C-alpha cells in the first residue's frame, strides 16, 4: 500500500513532465535540421492563399525544426505541378519541401496530365496544415436551389472554370456520380473571374473553398447547394453533403473524391527524403500546430488550421490510391471533352 502510494506520488510528480514530453520530444526530433537552411517551395503566387498560410506557419515551423533559416520560395505554375515536379526530382539530402494543394497533384496524376511527372503516393507526406471544405454554389438569382434542381435541368449545367484544376476535376466526378449533364466553359482567368460569371448568371455554378464564397453567400450573391466533404459539419448543418446525396453505387467514388480534396494544404517531401528528416519534419509540423500562439493567430486572421499528422496522411495515400482507381477514367474523359 505504501509502495502503491509512493508510486502514485512519483507518478503525480512526474505527470507535468510527462504531459510536456511530446513537445520536448518534438523539439529534440527537430535537431536534424538544427542550424540548417530549409526551403519551403510554395506552390502558388506571392498573393495566393497558400502563401498566406505558409507565411503564418513559417516562424513556428522554423522554431520547432530548430533550423537556422526557413526560407519561403514561391514556385507558382501549372496549378502546383511545377513545384511538385521540382520536389520529385530533388537529390537525396536536399532540405527542400513542398507546401500547397496536394489534392491537385493527386487529381492531375489520375487524369494523366502531361505536366505531372511524379507518382504522388511516393512523396513523403509531412503533415497537413489546413483543409478547407469545398462548396458548390450557384448564383444568388439562379432558379437552382438544390442538387435535385440541377438533376432536373433540361440542359447541361454550365460551369465556368479556369481549366483542368481541382474544381474542374471535382465537378466532373460530381456530374458522373449525381447524374447531371455538365458543360465546362474553360478559359477563365481565376476564381475571381468564375465567381463573377456565376453571380452574373453567365454560368450556373462553381466549386470554391468555403471561406472564398462565404462573403458572397452572406450577401446573397451566391447560394450554397452542396458541400463536397466526406462528413457533415456543424458549421453549415443545412447544406447537404455530397456523400449523403450520392446514390449507393457512386458513394465510393464520391467518398474518394472528398478524401482527396481533404488532403488540401500540406507539406510534402521528395521520395528520397531521409527517414530521420521525415520524422523530424513531421514532429515539427505537429508541434507547430499545437502552439497556442499559432492557434491564436490563425483564429484572429480567419485562417483556420485543421492539422493531420504526416504518417497518418502517408497511410491514407496508399489506401486512396487503391480506392480511387474508378476516378481515373472519369477524369480522363472530362479532360478529353474539353480538348
Amino acid at each position, binding site marked *: 500500500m505504501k509502495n502503491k502510494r509512493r508510486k502514485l506520488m512519483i507518478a503525480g510528480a512526474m505527470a507535468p513532465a510527462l504531459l510536456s514530453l511530446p513537445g520536448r520530444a518534438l523539439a529534440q526530433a527537430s535537431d536534424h535540421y538544427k542550424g540548417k537552411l530549409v526551403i519551403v517551395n510554395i506552390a502558388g*503566387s*506571392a*498573393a*495566393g492563399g497558400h*502563401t*498566406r498560410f505558409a*507565411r503564418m506557419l513559417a516562424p513556428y515551423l522554423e522554431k520547432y525544426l530548430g533550423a537556422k533559416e526557413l526560407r519561403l*520560395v*514561391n*514556385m*507558382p*505554375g*501549372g496549378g502546383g*505541378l*511545377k513545384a511538385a*515536379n521540382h520536389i520529385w526530382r530533388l537529390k537525396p539530402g536536399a532540405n527542400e519541401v513542398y507546401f500547397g494543394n496536394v489534392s491537385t497533384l493527386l487529381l492531375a496524376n489520375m487524369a494523366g*496530365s*502531361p*505536366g505531372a*511527372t511524379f507518382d504522388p503516393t511516393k512523396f513523403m507526406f509531412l503533415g497537413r496544415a489546413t483543409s478547407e471544405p469545398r462548396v458548390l454554389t450557384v448564383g444568388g438569382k439562379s432558379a437552382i436551389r438544390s442538387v435535385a434542381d440541377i438533376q432536373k435541368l433540361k440542359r447541361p449545367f*454550365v460551369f*465556368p472554370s479556369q*481549366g*483542368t484544376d481541382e474544381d474542374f476535376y471535382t465537378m466532373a466526378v460530381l456530374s458522373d456520380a449525381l447524374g447531371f449533364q455538365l*458543360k465546362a*466553359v*474553360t*478559359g*477563365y*482567368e*481565376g476564381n*475571381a*473571374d468564375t*465567381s*463573377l*460569371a456565376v*453571380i*452574373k448568371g*453567365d*454560368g450556373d455554378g462553381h466549386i470554391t473553398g468555403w471561406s472564398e464564397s462565404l*462573403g*458572397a453567400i*452572406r*450577401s446573397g*450573391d451566391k447560394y450554397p447547394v452542396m458541400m463536397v466533404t466526406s462528413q457533415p459539419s456543424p458549421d453549415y448543418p443545412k447544406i447537404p453533403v455530397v456523400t449523403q446525396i450520392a446514390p449507393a453505387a457512386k458513394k465510393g467514388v464520391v467518398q474518394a473524391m472528398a478524401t482527396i480534396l481533404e488532403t488540401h494544404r500540406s507539406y510534402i517531401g521528395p521520395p528520397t527524403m531521409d527517414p530521420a528528416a521525415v520524422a523530424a519534419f513531421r514532429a515539427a509540423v505537429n508541434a507547430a500546430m499545437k502552439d497556442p500562439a499559432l492557434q491564436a493567430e490563425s483564429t484572429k*486572421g*480567419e485562417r483556420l488550421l485543421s492539422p493531420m499528422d504526416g504518417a497518418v496522411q502517408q497511410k491514407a495515400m496508399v489506401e486512396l490510391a487503391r480506392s480511387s482507381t474508378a476516378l481515373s477514367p472519369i477524369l480522363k474523359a472530362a*479532360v478529353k471533352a*474539353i*480538348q
Partner: protein
Amino acid sequence: MIEAIGSGLAALLTPQALLFLFIGVIYGLVIGILPGLGGVVAMALLLPFTYGFETAATLALLLGAHIATIWGDSVTSILFSVPGSAKGLALCFDGYPMTKQGKAKRALAASATGALMGGIIGAIFLALCIPLIRPVILALGPSEYLMMALWGLTVIATFSEGSLMKGLTASVLGVLVAFIGMDVVTATPRFTFGSEFLMDGISFPVAMIGLFAVSEMMKMSIRGTPIIDRSLVREDSTVWQGICDAVGHWWLVIRSSLLGLWIGVLPGVGASVAGLAAYAQAAQTSKTPERFGKGAVEGVIAPDATMGANEGGGLMPTLAFGIPGGESMAILLVAFIGLGVVPGPEMLTKNLDLVFSMVWIIVLANIAVTVIGLGITPWLARLPSLQANLMVPIVLSVCFVGAYATRGRIEDVVVAAVFGVVGYLMDKYRYSRANFVIGMVLAVMIERNLHISLNLYGNDFLLDRPIALAMLLFVVFTAALPFLRSWRRRRAAGRGA
C-alpha cells in the same frame, strides 16, 4: 455621401496615416523603378508589416506604394526603354524617343502630371459612379473584354509605318511566343518541347526586358556612345514644358482617364491593355498620327493618365463583390480581412467612408508622387547621358536581376538574353518590337475571351451582347478615323489645287 467624403478624408489626416502614405510612396517609387518588380510585389512585401495599425494608415501604406510603382515604371520606360512591368510598355513608344531627342525632363514631367491628372479625374468619377458600379460590372463580360483587346490590337497599324507586312510579321511572332505554354482553354501544352519551364510560358515582363532594355544596351555597347551624346544632343527641355503639355492636352487626359477607369472596372483586363488602349486612342484621334512612335508627348500623357485612373476602377470589383480583380487586389483583400473589414455590397453602403478614404488615398498618393517626381526629374534626366561603359553594366545587371526576380528562375535570365538578341535584330532590320509585344499581350486575352463568348452565347454572340456590339462599332470607327482624316486632307488638297 458628402458626410462619407468628409469622414473618409478625416480618417487620413492623422500623423500615422500621413506618415504611412509618405513611406508607401517613396518605397513604391523605388520598387517601380526596378525592372520586373511592380505593384504586386510592393504590396506583398509590405503586407506582413501592416497588422495592428489604423485602418486608414494600413490602406495608405499599401495603396500609396501600389500607386507610386506606376510612375516608377514610367521613369525607366522613358529614360532607358526598360518597362518596369507590363504597364510601362506604352511609355517606351514615345517616351524613349523623347529622351533621345534631349527632351527627357519634358517627358518625365508630362508623364508625372498626366498620371496626377488621371488619378484625380479617375477618383472624382469613381466617387460619382459608386451607385452604378455593381450594375456596370454585372453588365460586362467576356465579349466586352474581347472588344477591349481588339481595340488594343488596332495600335499595330501605328507602328507599321514603312512596311505593313513587317509590322504584321512582328505581331504574329509575338502571338506565337504568347502561345508557348499551357493552352488556357484546353490545358494542352503548346510549343513546350517537353520543357517544364516552357509549360508556364514566356514571362511577359522578362520578354520586354530583353526586347527593349537588353537590346538597347547591346546597341549602345556596339556604338560606344551614351543614349544621349551631349556633344550632339543637348537636354534643352524643361519640367515646366512637360507640366504645360499635360495641362494643355486636358481633353486627351480626360478621355484617357475615363478609359482607364472603364478598363479598371473590367476585372481581368489589366493595366497593360489599359496603356495600349490609351495609346491607341491617342494616336487614332490625333490630327497628326504620323508623329506617334517618334517622340509625341501625347503618347506619354495618354498612357500615364489612363494608368493613374485605372487604379481606382480596379478597386471596384474588390469592394463591390469582395472579388479581387487581380493579384494586387487579392493582397488588398487579405489586408481587409486582417483589419476586420468585409468587402461586398455592404462596403458601398455601410462602409462608404472607408471607400472614400481609399479614393482620397489615390488622390493624395498621386499628388505626393507627382511632387516628388517633378522634384527629382532634373537629376533623373541626366542618367541617359552616362557613358556607355558605365551605363551598360549597370542597366544590364539591373535587367538580369529583374528578370530573375520576376519568377525566381534562372531560366528567365537566359530568356531575357535571348530576347535581347531578338530585339536587337528586329530593330536592325526594322521589324517593330512594339508590335511584337502588342501581339504577345493581346493574343491570350483575345483567345480566352473569344472562346468563352462563343461557348456561352454562341456564334452570333455579338447580337446577344449589345454593349459588345457598340464597342466593336467604336473600335472600327476609331481605327478608321486616321484613314478618314487622311482621305479628307487629300480631298481638300485636291480641291485647293
